[in-house]
């Protein structure tokens, strides 16, 4: 049986209300942590828990926290990444709208563990509903003394502020997010220095994803070891998988780390819509290499997917059936990267724009065979010498779609049209 930790309240009536949260054990972990634990002990539990950041990179959370300088000359900030923007990913929205107090309790425990008295939650500008519900929950928490001054009578103070973005995918990248929070355009910063040393307003800063922080109450309640045991090797806990595309039941599924991709699609997602055949899966957001139908016997965890030549990323799983035109799928992907590159580094700016044009040419039936080679050479040209990981991520689809679906790309070039059901391309892409 699959145990629910992150989504156990999602289906309760008025699940976002403090009353519901308290009557189902809420804020007990925070109280215990603040009253009986030392901050270092919490960091230690988090290390043992094998919790890895769910924002996409899968970095050890306990390790990240221990990068903070031991000597505190400046305030420490906690910044919550709620800028959810990775195509195919929608889990953070569920947490904020259905169980906002779980996130707030996680923020409280984390702030105590890292010695922060101010946390910012950076929410993408389009998530107006999430913002309102979370702000309502923050207000409730202040009113009951779970936030503010002298929390649980321990003398610990914490202020939580919500901050709305304004529409820019790149602001999900942690240093771009910090720039944006400081009131600037979202240009990623060169690292090092890492935010743990020089982050928000020049102060040490820990940035974590919404889902990552929402694991904290469970880690405190059960201990790091028990949390680790819920997952698989090196991947603690459960994970919220966002499933969409051509499946019968799209949605958010909380499953053990390492659950086979096949199970997610067929057992939980109800299989392919209308009884059609599976063609391809993108397992972890736009930057993940695409998988073919015969490659889905793989565990949904960081190591297994890496071994399969792709990545878990943000766990946004997009399923494509036999009617899908893979050239169109890559075109949509290419347009996204061209649109969202911040333009700071020329290989990324020029590369994403140019490759979008190449895929568009193939899609419109004006492609040449050598275009395929061009596409597949992208990692060499674009990755590496850039400020942030966006360019490396953008390269992945170009080196996987045309390789794995070479036949289809070639046919598109030869015959100037698509293979599956759609015979021609009626709309212009812009």
């Amino acid at each position, binding site marked *: 049986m699959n145990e629910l930790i992150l989504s156990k309240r999602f289906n309760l009536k008025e699940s976002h209300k403090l009353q519901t949260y308290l009557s189902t054990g809420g804020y007990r972990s925070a109280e215990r942590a603040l009253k009986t634990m030392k901050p270092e002990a919490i960091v230690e539990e988090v290390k043992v828990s094998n919790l890895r950041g769910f924002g996409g990179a899968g970095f050890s959370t306990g390790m990240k926290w221990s990068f903070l300088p031991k000597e505190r000359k400046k305030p420490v900030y906690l910044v919550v990444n709620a800028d959810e923007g990775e195509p195919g990913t929608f889990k953070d929205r569920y947490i904020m709208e259905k169980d906002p107090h779980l996130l707030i309790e996680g923020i409280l425990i984390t702030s105590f563990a890292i010695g922060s008295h101010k946390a910012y939650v950076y929410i993408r500008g389009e998530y107006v509903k999430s913002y309102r519900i979370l702000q309502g929950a923050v207000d409730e928490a202040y009113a009951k003394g779970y936030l503010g001054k002298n929390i649980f009578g321990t003398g610990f103070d914490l202020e939580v502020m919500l901050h709305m973005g*304004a529409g820019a995918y790149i602001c999900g990248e942690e240093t771009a997010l910090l720039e944006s929070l400081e009131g600037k355009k979202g240009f990623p910063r060169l690292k090092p220095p890492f935010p743990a040393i020089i982050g928000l307003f020049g102060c040490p800063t820990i940035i974590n994803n919404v889902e990552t922080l929402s694991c904290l109450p469970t880690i405190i309640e059960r201990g790091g070891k028990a949390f680790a045991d819920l997952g698989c090797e090196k991947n603690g806990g459960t994970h919220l998988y966002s499933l969409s595309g051509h499946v019968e039941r799209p949605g958010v599924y909380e499953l053990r780390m390492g659950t086979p991709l096949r199970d997610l699609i067929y057992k939980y997602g109800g299989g392919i819509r209308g009884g059609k055949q599976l063609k391809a899966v993108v397992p972890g957001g736009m930057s993940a290499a695409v998988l073919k139908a015969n490659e889905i016997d793989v565990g949904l965890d960081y190591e297994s997917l890496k071994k399969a030549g792709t990545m878990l990323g943000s766990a946004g799983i997009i399923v494509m059936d036999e009617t899908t035109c893979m050239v169109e799928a890559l075109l949509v992907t290419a347009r996204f990267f061209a649109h969202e590159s911040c333009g700071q580094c020329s290989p990324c700016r020029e590369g994403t724009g140019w490759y979008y044009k190449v895929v568009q040419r193939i899609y419109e039936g004006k492609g040449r065979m050598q275009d395929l080679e061009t596409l597949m050479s992208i990692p060499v040209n674009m990755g590496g010498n850039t400020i942030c990981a966006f360019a490396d991520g953008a390269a992945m689809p170009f080196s996987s779609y045309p390789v794995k679906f070479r036949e289809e790309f070639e046919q598109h070039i030869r015959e100037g049209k698509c293979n599956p059901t759609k015979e021609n391309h009626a709309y212009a892409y812009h």
Partner: protein
Amino acid sequence: MAFTFTPSNQKKINEILPRYETKQAALLPILHLAQEQHGYLSPDVEEAVASLLGLPVVKVREVTSFYTLYEKKPCGKTPIRVCRNLSCTLLGGREILEYVRQKLGIDVGESTPDGRFRLDSVECLCACEMAPMMQVGDDYYGPLTKEKVDQILKEGRK
């Protein structure tokens, strides 16, 4: 005419400002307020916000032009954002966009002559479980069919 905030927005700003470590950090929320009040961020809005925060106007302009949710020109009141990313495309997002365009009689990036709507085609709104979907004003709608679009636009016109 020079732009000024309404008294109630000025009050909100007075509450926001001291909560941030620097004045500049309040720029995004203040621009959101300004756009809500004025409909779009005209040069005189940018100037007013710059002087309020003690910033050079270019710093404000850099920000208004970087972020897609800030409007720089007069536009229809309610934004319609039709998602064009992968999950929505797979489930008919392009047909929905085409239908909304026809229905409103405007192209992407344009506003209706009656000033009610503006239309955009946007990247993933992270609600792919309701694909194909769109955002109208603050709210998300999906999975969309032509009938649903009709209904939503009718509601929106009220």
